[in-house]
């Protein structure tokens, strides 16, 4: 189903090397009326059914969670990504993510539902054969069966391929006996279906569809920092007898299943993260208008305004990145046969860098926003009777799971260097001398055009950073995590700045500049600050690679300076939030 309209297919991993026009990207404003209605169902369901049962959910009353998942199934909220011939709706990722954003209203329930629909169900959607799909998907779509994804083990976390769980063929050749232990399994306490990764004969990493009755045993509920209302347990496999027809995908190709599914997970996590950030921001706005100190609402104070504005900026830029990426993925998927799983996965895999960027940036934005929300609430923020405390705890996991942000920061530059753009990197010393010959740039303050010029500089900085890494460390890059992560930070900012510019340009062309005053201010402030962060990362990177002095000079030349009054801009942004009572973009 095409919802992305005339947006054209863009190759993944190329944003550093190519320019983009606003008409080429999907933005939140492009979400269709029908997709808005899908989300409306999810929002109403969350408000009326889920939020009213929060106490039972947080008390780990799993029958209530299961009942709610079944109700979600009745409303079709679990079948969005499942193909039509297997009881699903076969909708696009934008629909799926937009619905997911509403589910973020309660992150604990969102974790249960998201683990089921994304990492629990999608392995069967993309890697199952027709028998497996027909057997499991209709009941996963209805919520009759609930799924869990079992990759991590006590000693294999980020290093997932180092799994110890073994699968041994029984002498009659009809079953595999699985033996081992999985850790941190979301929905572990009540799931019926487990996607388990084990090594056949201790070597060939392979995915299996394991039913609880095959002998999967849940451990006790973990006592967690956050997400109190989601089930997280170990899953013990003690001679768990799985029929051979339940091997998922090819024997020895379990890593293909695991890594591709996590790509999806990261992409969808982005919309949930920004959805959560917006809830915290709205809570902060409401509380700061209600809370009086020194005879006036604290929303009147500059330092509170600064916080509100900064939160709004993160939400705006985050959405720009999330929906741009989702739109690209959907566009690519439109051009492949949806029944050909391998083509689908290939189409998505090329956006792995973008998915990683979205995961890192949005989880860190959520951390900032939930942390500042606690601060806006002051002492009440530290109290469990107010929402800020739970949101703060719930947010913390998002920087850890679905691949830690550290792993993502290593992956971003290394994948870019292996990808389609690597041939476009120029010779380092030529680039450096070319840049040093230029004069330091003072950009003036013209809003979006200034941001465009800054973007050009930041992209050039990012390319220079990549070239310098290759030049200095070549094959040993993986041993230079700190330097690689600095380059990642620059690349991430390039994507963030560009996404924000494209969103504002598209908004302005649709609504006119006057109606887009606030988005334009958000863009100016973000770009101004991001350029400084890029400059700092670049300077630190330069110190750690060859030709430090010259490189430092080149980076210095590229660092833009703009005379922007960010205090005034943030006040304007905050005033509009306070006036409307909530974040509107």
């Amino acid at each position, binding site marked *: 189903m095409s919802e992305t309209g005339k947006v054209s297919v863009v190759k993944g991993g190329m944003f550093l090397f190519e320019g983009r026009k606003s008409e080429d990207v999907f933005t939140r404003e492009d979400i269709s*009326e029908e997709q808005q209605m899908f989300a*409306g*169902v999810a929002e109403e369901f969350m408000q009326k059914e889920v939020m009213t049962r929060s106490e039972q959910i947080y008390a780990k009353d799993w029958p209530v969670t299961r009942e709610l998942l079944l109700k979600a199934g009745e409303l*079709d909220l679990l*079948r969005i990504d499942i193909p039509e011939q297997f009881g699903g709706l076969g*909708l696009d990722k934008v629909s799926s993510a937009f619905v997911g954003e509403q589910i973020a209203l309660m992150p604990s329930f969102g974790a249960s539902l998201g683990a089921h629909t994304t990492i629990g169900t999608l392995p069967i959607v993309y890697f199952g054969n027709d028998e497996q799909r027909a057997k499991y998907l209709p009941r996963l779509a209805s919520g009759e069966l609930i799924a869990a994804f079992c990759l991590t083990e006590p000693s294999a976390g980020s290093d997932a391929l180092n799994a110890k769980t073994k699968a041994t063929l029984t002498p009659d050749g009809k079953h595999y006996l699985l033996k081992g232990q999985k850790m941190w399994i979301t929905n572990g306490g009540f799931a019926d279906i487990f996607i388990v990764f084990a090594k056949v004969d201790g070597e060939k990493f392979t995915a299996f569809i394991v039913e609880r009755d095959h002998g999967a045993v849940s451990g006790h509920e973990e006592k967690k920092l956050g997400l109190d209302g989601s089930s997280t347990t170990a899953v013990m496999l003690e001679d768990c007898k799985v029929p051979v027809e339940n091997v998922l995908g090819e024997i020895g190709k379990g890593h293909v299943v695991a890594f591709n599914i996590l790509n999806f997970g990261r992409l969808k996590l982005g919309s949930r993260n920004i959805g959560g950030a917006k809830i915290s921001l709205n809570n902060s706005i409401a509380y700061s208008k209600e809370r*009086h100190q020194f005879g006036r609402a604290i929303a009147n104070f500059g330092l509170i305004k600064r916080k509100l504005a900064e939160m709004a900026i993160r939400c705006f830029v985050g959405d720009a990145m999330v929906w741009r990426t989702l739109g690209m993925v959907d566009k690519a998927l439109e051009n492949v046969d949806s029944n050909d799983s391998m083509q689908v996965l290939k189409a998505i895999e090329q956006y792995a860098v973008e998915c990683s960027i979205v995961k890192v940036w949005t989880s860190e934005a959520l951390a900032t926003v939930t942390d500042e929300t606690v601060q806006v609430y002051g002492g009440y923020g530290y109290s469990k009777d107010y929402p800020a405390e739970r949101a703060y705890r719930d947010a913390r996991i998002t920087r850890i799971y679905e691949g830690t942000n550290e792993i993502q920061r290593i992956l971003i530059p290394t994948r870019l260097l292996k990808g389609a753009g690597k041939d476009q990197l120029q010779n380092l010393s030529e680039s450096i001398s070319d840049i040093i010959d230029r004069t330091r740039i003072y950009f003036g303050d013209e809003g979006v055009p200034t941001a465009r010029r800054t973007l050009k500089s930041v992209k050039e900085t990012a390319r220079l950073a990549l070239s310098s890494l290759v030049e200095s460390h070549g094959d040993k890059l993986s041993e230079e995590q700190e330097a690689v992560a600095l380059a990642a930070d620059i690349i991430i900012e390039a994507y963030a700045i560009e996404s924000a510019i494209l969103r504002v340009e598209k908004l302005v062309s649709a609504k006119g500049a006057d109606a887009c005053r606030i988005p334009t201010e958000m863009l100016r402030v973000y770009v101004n600050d991001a350029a400084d962060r890029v400059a700092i990362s670049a300077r630190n990177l330069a110190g750690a690679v060859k030709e430090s002095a010259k490189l430092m000079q080149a980076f210095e030349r590229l660092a833009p300076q703009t005379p922007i009054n960010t205090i005034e801009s943030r006040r304007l942004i905050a005033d509009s939030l306070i006036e*409307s009572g909530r974040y509107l973009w």
Partner: protein
Amino acid sequence: MKIIVCLKQVPKNDSVLRINEQGTWIQDRDLTYEINESDAYGLEAALQLKEKHGGEVIALSLGPARVQSVIKEALARGADRGIHLEDTAFDNLDAYGIGTAIAAATKAEGFDLLLTGLQSDDYGFAQTGVIAAELLGLPHTTIVMDVELNDAGLRVKRELENGFFQWVNMPAPAVLTIQSGINTLRYATLKGIMAAKKKEIKKLDAATLGIDAASLAPRMEFRRIYLPQKNKQTQFIEGSAGDIAAKLIDKLKNEARVF
């Protein structure tokens, strides 16, 4: 049984309302909308009658292009088709004007039952359905809690004041205004939303309906809109919860002399 249900689109209940610069109405910039609460119960009543007795449910709304979203919402919940009354001549109508347009459109369509909510959450006129009934020459009952069909027509439960009720018998076709809370609203499903795309929404304007300007002419004039003036001076009590509680009990005891 052919049922037409009128749905008004109103600003969401929790909207922050701001008066426009001319002081004549509210600013509609930044507003989000929803189906008027009692109209949603009217829709649900219609869908339940259809499930019980068969027939057709038609969702009708009057207003600018944006009101199509409430029609679509109704189609997603199970209404069979929609009617959208759209015309600049329909802007800023009073209840008589709206009743006139609804009467013309529903007369052309024909029906057994015309349902509206008992009042809108914005203007709160509480008379559109009754006016339409009068213009159509049909019987009506307001603030309806329950609807039964029988051979003679309708038996409807009317809510009266002070906890009283009354059943009223009427022939069909008739017009009923529905009270909020009389049934449990269903959700739209995603499949319902997707199916709604294929359902027809007929657009009608004043000329097509043969409505002349005189019948839409305002019968009341809005002089000004403003924040309500307070009759009472409210004393706001502030502080920590403990402080507030202590101050309030003290004031109730010594100032208001309630205890």
